């Protein structure tokens, strides 16, 4: 089965070639506390056990921008647009120096969050959806986007047992409610709404993440299996 040619999400990078990318990119999307990192850890180990090299990458994790973004977050002073741009710089750095080279070398790239996170967060903050989509138009379209959906009632205990209702994960900058808990619920509800709106727009594969981690992992592997078979066939 021939691989569908790699595509840019928008305008792309005029100076980067993507004709030959033997690797595959899998994105796990979902809101804060949904369990992405646990699932990615299990998934990566499984893909490696099948004999494929894995490179993992994550939102804000570039060496260049990571510390800058942490510093910006601790200050609570930046406006939403500057934040979007900081995320875009982080993403551009990882795309060109990490993701594309790994795909050229035939790795499976597993991404913890992708540009859809920026789209969701910006939409909740009232930014122009056209601007942020155009900004991230240089992104490569992933081969598979698994969106981990969850009910807010299941999500809230996970957030509280994890990092807790932190300033940004609670959307405190938006001043939606008087108490941090109520603000967090309202913010997460809005983020979930934006992700769900994007399911059709970008063709997400939806996995229900409200159940046990094992059930969620099984559902994710079922979707990834097809890609791995394709890759194995190409290499046969």
């Amino acid at each position, binding site marked *: 089965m021939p691989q569908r040619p790699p595509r840019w999400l928008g*305008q792309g*990078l*005029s*100076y980067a070639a993507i004709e030959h990318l033997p690797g595959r990119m899998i994105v796990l999307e979902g809101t804060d506390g949904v369990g992405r990192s646990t699932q990615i850890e299990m998934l990566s180990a499984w893909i490696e056990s099948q004999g494929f090299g894995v490179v993992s990458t994550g939102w804000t994790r570039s060496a*260049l*921008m990571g510390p*800058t973004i942490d*510093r*910006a977050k601790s200050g609570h002073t*930046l*406006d939403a*647009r*500057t934040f979007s*741009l*900081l995320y*875009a*710089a982080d993403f*551009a*750095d990882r795309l*060109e*120096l990490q993701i594309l080279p790994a795909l050229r070398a035939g790795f499976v790239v597993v991404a913890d969050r992708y540009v859809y996170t920026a789209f969701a967060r910006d939409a909740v903050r009232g930014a122009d959806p*056209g*601007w942020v989509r*155009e*900004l991230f*138009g*240089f992104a490569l379209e992933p081969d598979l986007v698994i969106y981990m959906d969850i009910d807010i009632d299941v999500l809230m205990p996970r957030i509280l047992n994890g990092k807790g209702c932190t300033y940004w994960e609670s959307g405190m900058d938006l001043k939606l409610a008087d108490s941090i808990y109520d603000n967090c619920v309202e913010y997460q509800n809005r983020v979930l709404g934006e992700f769900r709106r994007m399911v059709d727009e970008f063709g997400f594969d939806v996995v229900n993440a409200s159940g046990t981690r094992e059930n969620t992992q099984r559902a994710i592997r079922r979707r990834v299996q097809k890609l791995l078979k394709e890759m194995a066939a190409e290499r046969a």
Partner: protein
Amino acid sequence: MPLHDYVTPHPYPGKLIIVEGIDGSGKSTQLDLLRKYLESEGHPVHFTEWNSSALVKDTTKKGKKQKSLTPTTFSILHCCDFAERLAYSIIPPLKGGMIVLADRYMYTAFARDVARGVSREWVRGMYSFAPKPDIAYYFQITPEVSVERILTGRPQLKYYEAGLDVMDTDDPVESFGLFQGAIVNEYDAMVDEFGLTVIDGTRPIYTQQQEMRAIMAEKLGDYLTRSVPPRRGSTARRRTPAKASTAKRPTAASTKAAK
């Protein structure tokens, strides 16, 4: 293409004056002279400079040191810096009725980033939130003049400054000339696209400054007569009667503090 903010006049009571041009074009010297003139006339002035926000500057420095900045990352980082300065150093003084003087503006990105290989349309879209300047002076010189001026008294060109990351040569001087040439081409094409006011950057400093002031007087005449706060005990300098709009003018102390 969506309608960009920078195509229509901004809604603020202040005025935005910016200078553009390649390295060595004399734009910073001229802006500094204009600033001193405006201040001596008693106008509330705020100055801001390209790539100067603390947060982004350190990051750019790190990337430059490691020579790891790709054209797109480089471009977005400059826009981060711009967005932060816009929110803190450009829009508030414009809202407060001040004159904002900016050493370089989005046209620098449109010229330099495109010369580095990023798409013209994409970089324009990224800056679509920028307010349109009231006057955009473009100091025009040839790449040859730039090379001559920059190399005088500067022993070494820096890696990114010389465009060594994108030009097909390892010789810094040759690369710098080629890179400046590519930037000049972009700037020259923007004169009509954005209505830049061209100043011949090869003429004497004094002559250029006179021309700048004359253009400013013509374009901002009404604002300039209104914006001078009344001097204590004398209204002789004012050419029009005081209006209520002077009530919220920043004091000289707060203007100084803002620098």
